[in-house]
């Protein structure tokens, strides 16, 4: 299944709970303030990298660009546009937004 996180990993607990709950083989899409987790040098980058063993991680490029963080995207994270977001939703049977 597809997990969607839209919250900053240092402000809220959404990413932590998502990572602890998501089952291997799923996908994680970071959008809105959630994209900060996918930036190099961020305190949450280590745990996101560790999660890549079990989850495929994506981040919404327009949200990274809006925040001036596109060039800092973390290695191993696949950047997608809104079309890619749509594909992720249709490719997975269910999606869960960790608000």
């Amino acid at each position: 299944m597809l997990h969607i996180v839209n919250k900053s990993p240092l402000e809220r607990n959404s990413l932590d709970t998502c990572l602890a709950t998501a089952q291997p083989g799923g996908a994680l899409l970071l959008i809105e303030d959630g994209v900060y987790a996918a930036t190099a040098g961020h305190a949450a980058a280590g745990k996101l990298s560790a999660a890549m063993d079990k989850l495929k991680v994506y981040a919404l490029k327009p949200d990274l660009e809006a925040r001036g963080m596109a060039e800092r995207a973390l290695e191993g994270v696949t950047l997608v546009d809104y079309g890619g977001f749509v594909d992720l939703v249709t490719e997975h049977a269910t999606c869960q937004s960790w608000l």
Partner: protein
Amino acid sequence: MKIAILINEGPYTHEATDSAYLFARAAIEKGHQVSRVFFYHDGVNNSTRLTEPPQDDRHIVNRWARLGDEHKIDLVVCVAAALRRGIKDENLAPGFRISGLGQLVEAGIQADRLVTFGD
């Protein structure tokens, strides 16, 4: 594919409704059908015709109405949430309709996917 969308936050304050709009537009461009957008919680505030953003800013309400009109999207505003927050037929923008929570459950049953945007 038939996709339904749930929006839980109001316009401008949270990015949720922007993300939902750009997602819906992209889905349509990819040939999918966006069957219904359900506005719940503060999301009902996306439907007031009185919204007047600065000239150089996007008009979130009109943008939804236009997309809905062009692509036959059912834009449903939850009646219980709307009454609590001062949204009635009196200030409802054209293109939206006020109805019950059953429309959200029905959207979940009938659509292939339900995607939630909120805070």
